[in-house]
């Protein structure tokens, strides 16, 4: 595929150490569009080897507002379903620019390894220096070893290494969107982490028209969506209960995922003055909040915002799904931060999650209409749009996104195909 693509699929066999590459066939894009459409197809092709498939949308990494999303597709150990989890912050686009559109990771290594993806190359490296380290220390180690602080890391902590069913794949130091036990799959494969650096280039079929349309779309979105900033305003916009009064005093700054107009994340300072502008002298002054749901539950449990955020940081270091921890703590009536922290190794049963079909419940906030929520998630996961932002921006219509995808790729990507791919991905 010539445009908005690196034209490459990698197939990584952790069992043998073999890595092969294929071109991304335009016929596959015409039939399955991209993102979850193609990762689902690749999953079925390698189903017998228990693959995890990384994938990008056609629009991922472009100037379309919200074009932040890459995804991982695998069979969730929690639900038993073929499922998809989001890769956001800057990790989604670093993968898009790494030289690959898709990557199949199959088999299991007989010793701990990590993958290093960069410049159209993927290496399988010995993970002896990072295995046993928490998520933060492992991220630091890889960045220091490679000499690049901008490397994006999809990694597991002790929970994943121990194959806890609640293990999650974190992004750098933070909770990612994996609420479906993909961290457990990393552990089963002896895969500690995936380091990604994207320094590639994506050609555009009709560059001037494409970029002009992006400017117009952003202008429309800015006028209609307004300035919803940070995790508390995003929660309110999606109909969740108000956590602003509780949390906002700790907020240092709001942070956006790549090219996402409304920042959906907030960085809180728990060990530093949140109003401080200069660089903190404290090595780890706080935590980036990326997931709304656990905050709501921990507030309901009676934790202070500071205790809740510190606990969430510890969840991320341990590599355990904070939403599940919050739910199970509420169910087990474990209400002090220390007791919750001590319970991490014992938490084995899956938490009760809403039925969000094949998509991670990460973007399930408030009480959305299930059918329209799933449709919107499907569009986001197929085309590469931030799943939370997509829920708040009705200007990103399916028609507009398909027009842009067609313009950027010079392929005729139609509504009929999108409907078919959504049916294929969701099984409906």
């Amino acid at each position, binding site marked *: 595929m010539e445009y908005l693509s690196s034209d490459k699929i990698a197939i990584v066999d952790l069992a043998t150490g073999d890595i092969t590459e294929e071109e991304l066939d335009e016929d596959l894009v015409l039939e399955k569009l991209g993102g979850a459409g193609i990762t689902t197809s690749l999953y079925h092709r390698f189903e017998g080897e228990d693959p995890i498939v990384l994938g990008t949308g056609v629009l991922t990494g*472009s100037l379309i507002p919200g074009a932040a999303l890459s995804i991982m597709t695998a069979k969730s150990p929690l639900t038993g379903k073929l499922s998809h989890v989001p890769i956001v912050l800057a990790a989604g686009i670093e993968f898009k620019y790494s030289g690959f559109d898709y990557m199949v990771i199959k088999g299991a290594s007989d010793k701990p390894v990590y993958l290093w993806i960069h410049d159209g190359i993927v290496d399988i490296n010995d993970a002896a220096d990072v295995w046993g380290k928490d998520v933060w220390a492992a991220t630091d180690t890889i960045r220091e070893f490679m000499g690049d602080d901008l490397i994006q890391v999809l990694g597991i902590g002790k929970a994943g290494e121990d194959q806890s069913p609640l293990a999650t794949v974190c992004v750098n130091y933070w909770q990612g969107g994996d609420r479906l036990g993909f961290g457990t799959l990393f552990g089963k494969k002896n895969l500690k982490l995936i380091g990604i650096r994207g*320094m590639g280039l*994506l050609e555009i079929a009709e560059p001037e028209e494409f970029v002009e349309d992006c*400017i117009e779309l952003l202008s429309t979105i800015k006028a209609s969506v307004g300035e919803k900033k940070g995790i508390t305003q995003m929660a309110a916009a999606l109909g969740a209960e108000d956590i602003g009064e509780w949390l906002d005093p700790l907020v240092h700054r709001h942070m956006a995922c790549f*090219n996402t107009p409304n920042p959906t994340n907030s960085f809180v300072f728990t060990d530093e003055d949140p109003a401080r*502008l200069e660089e*903190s002298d404290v090595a*780890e002054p706080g935590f980036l909040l990326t997931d709304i749901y656990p905050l709501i539950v921990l507030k309901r449990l009676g934790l202070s915002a500071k205790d809740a955020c510190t606990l969430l940081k510890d969840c991320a270091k341990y590599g355990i799904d904070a939403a599940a921890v919050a739910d199970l703590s509420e169910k087990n009536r474990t209400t002090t931060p220390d007791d919750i922290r001590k319970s991490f190794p014992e938490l084995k049963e899956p938490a009760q999650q809403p039925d969000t079909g094949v998509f991670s419940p990460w973007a399930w906030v408030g009480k959305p209409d299930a059918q329209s929520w799933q449709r919107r998630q499907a569009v986001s996961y197929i085309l590469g749009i931030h799943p939370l932002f997509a829920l708040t921006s009705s200007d990103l219509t399916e028609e507009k996104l398909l027009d842009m995808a067609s313009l950027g790729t010079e392929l005729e990507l139609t509504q009929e195909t999108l409907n078919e791919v959504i049916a294929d991905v969701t099984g409906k």
Partner: protein
Amino acid sequence: MGIKIDGLLCTGCMACELACGYHRDDAFALLSSCIVPYRGREKKNYLGVILKEEDSLVAARPEGLEVNKIGEEQDPDKEADASAKPMLLRESCDLCEDMDEGPLCIKFCPVNAISMA
């Protein structure tokens, strides 16, 4: 006339960086941009924007602007930003002079952190 940046408003979305990269390469790429959010101090959430001008490197930090003349000796005690290292090798900001739309970083900043001075 030049570009003015409010480092405190920046949310680190990198839209300016990609827009500038497009201006340089007529494609989507990040390596040739003369404007980049510096995001190498992630754990501290210390974030601003670096802009390469013809004779200076502008760091729009949350606490204010810092302008370093290119070629002059820098404070050896100050830690360099990882994102800033390749900036000196890149072309300087030309305000997107060949583009009808004007400076694309301004057009694409969703939080109006970038404007014309």
